[in-house]
């Protein structure tokens, strides 16, 4: 446990100090979005990496959080913090309810079902013009504020978003190292065996699905208040694929890996900018190469590479946080 604590403190320290290196740079703005993507990736990782359930529709929960926050605060004047809580609970509840039938499916069927769910929700965002503003998007969402402090600058939003990320990481690391975490890993490896020894697999999977959805909804609320404008394309199938990529590239089952994946994919457009139209090809190629050559993600792949280069024996990599 001490190791986990050290890792967490190290991470927290870097997160808190990072802005000082980028105060006047637009990278600070990017780091805010890295934070939001990290939240999403960690949420998805709980479902994907730990419980081993594929979801290709997670952007929908992100969108639900964003639209619920946006609409309730702007059109109905609700308190943004209250709305964030309500949105998270509502989305979590919805995920819980739909989780029962959906998580009976496995592998590719689950992937397609979540994909279908994601697309249906996207279509609702796009078509229900009276409420969501439809394809033109929804603007005028207020910034969050705490008393006199209004979160309207990149620096303030950075600390706002990353506080949530740090909280979420803490929660996830604790979860992963608890009895629940072990039960999840058991389900991932051999579901029937886990059930035989008394793990209520069905309930646990649905609970993680709901938790994962809640985290994504919170990320959505934060996104809405930071951007002050939301539109359906930010919550479509491509985004679900991007999230999946972040988790896989970072390393399934590695919380800090999800951060790495989120960072890499949010920054990738910066590096690829000089490639203009080639970036799509590069992105697809990267996905394929990573999947073939580094299936454990970067958190496993880079140290392995290092060790190979240094001529040491390859260590046994398990799925740790």
């Amino acid at each position: 446990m001490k190791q986990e604590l050290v890792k967490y403190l190290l991470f927290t320290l870097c997160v808190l100090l990072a802005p000082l290196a980028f105060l006047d740079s637009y990278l600070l703005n990017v780091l805010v979005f890295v934070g939001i993507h990290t939240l999403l990736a960690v949420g998805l990782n709980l479902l994907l990496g730990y419980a081993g359930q594929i979801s290709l529709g997670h952007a929908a929960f992100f969108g639900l959080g964003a639209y619920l926050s946006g609409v309730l605060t702007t059109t109905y004047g609700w308190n943004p913090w209250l709305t964030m809580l309500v949105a998270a609970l509502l989305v979590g509840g919805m995920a819980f309810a739909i989780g029962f039938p959906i998580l009976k499916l496995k592998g590719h069927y689950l992937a397609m079902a979540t994909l279908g769910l994601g697309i249906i929700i996207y279509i609702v965002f796009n078509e229900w013009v009276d409420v969501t503003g439809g394809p033109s998007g929804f603007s005028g969402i207020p910034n969050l504020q705490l008393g006199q402090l209004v979160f309207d600058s990149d620096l303030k939003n950075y600390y706002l978003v990353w506080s949530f990320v740090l909280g979420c990481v803490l929660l996830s690391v604790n979860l992963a190292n608890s009895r629940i975490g072990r039960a999840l890993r058991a389900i991932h490896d051999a579901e029937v065996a886990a059930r035989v020894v008394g793990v209520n697999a069905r309930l646990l999977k649905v609970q993680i699905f709901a938790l994962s959805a809640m985290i994504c909804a919170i990320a959505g609320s934060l996104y809405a208040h930071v951007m002050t404008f939301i539109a359906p394309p930010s919550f479509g199938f491509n985004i679900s694929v991007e999230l999946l990529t972040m988790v896989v590239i970072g390393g399934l089952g590695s919380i800090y890996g999800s951060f790495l994946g989120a960072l890499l994919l949010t920054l990738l457009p910066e590096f690829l900018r000089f490639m203009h139209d080639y970036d799509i090809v590069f992105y697809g190629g990267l996905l394929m190469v990573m999947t073939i050559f580094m299936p454990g993600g970067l958190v496993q792949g880079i140290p392995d590479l290092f060790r190979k280069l240094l001529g040491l024996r390859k260590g046994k990599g398990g799925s740790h946080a």
Partner: protein
Amino acid sequence: MLTRIMTVLMLSAAMLLSASFALAADTIKIGGLFAVTGPPAFLGEPERNTAKMVVDEINKSGGVKGQKLELIVYDTAGDATKAVQMATKLIRDDQVVAIIGPSTTGETMAVIPVVEKARIPLISCAAGSKITDPVKRYVFKTAQNDALAVERIYDYLKRQKKNRVALLTVSDGFGASGREQLKALAPRFGMQVVVDDTYGPKDTDMTSQLTKIRASQAQVLIVWGTNPGPAVIAKNAKQLGLKLPLYMSHGVSSKKFIALAGDAAEGVKLPSGKVIVADVLPKKDPQKASLLAFVKDYQNQYKQEGDHFGGHAWDAVMLLKGAIERGANTAESIRDGLENTRQFHGIGGTFTYSANDHAGLSKDAFVMVEIRNKDWSLAK
């Protein structure tokens, strides 16, 4: 395993540090946000090409008041989040004094708070009326308001003594905005909307919607979308033997539409910026000279006809040039200079901005055109 967390932190530091570059030069820096890739690429690509072309031309003839323009373009892929990020980058890192674009209304709405806060003037190439209505201090636009296009169509219909319309609009930003205006302006022209239907941007068969429309009381069908949807609709309409006159939006005012729809395009009418009928305009039209020059230059440089969308960027750069010439090259004075633009004969129309009009055009920016013999001609 500490190796893992160290890997994470070291890789992160490496990535972040290598992502921050810096530039410095003694030029007037202008930012460009265009959707060069992604679904709105048919807007962003000609816009970026045109902007580059015009900036090069200006620099070749000595720049603006002796200083060269430097255009820094970022591709937003039509994504609002990217547009916001790139706008921030242009303002913070690249230190631009003005921004041209974005290409779509959605992205523009997302970027508005950023430029308003940073006090950098923005000239959007998107069509949504709500970009400049209500007026924002630093936000201007060059693309004609969709409201103007709608007014043009309704005006024409009124003269034709038709008043029952069926609407078929695409469910994206452009279509949604058009639909809003079509419904809002209908009463003013005595139009009655009898069918209000939609189609998806990637849909390939609209016979269901057209069948419904055929069974209705509509006298006229107005289609609001961009290629390829309207071309499919035109073909479907021909297949079904739909007798209703077809009116489209300026979203298809390019030869591409005629190429896609083939014979089905015959007789289709739409409001268009004057650029596609530049050669048949009356000689005394004040825009004719600029239009012909634009079409010719674009053709020379990019081997394609300069179109309606590229024109938005042409207008934006030229308006900026005018503003800089009128004042200084700081953001604030450019903004003031823009607001003082009077009677600038551009590609999209004749622009006159003012303190409460940052869209600058009137409905003369559009002419009704008709497709006859696979080419554009002025509608009678």
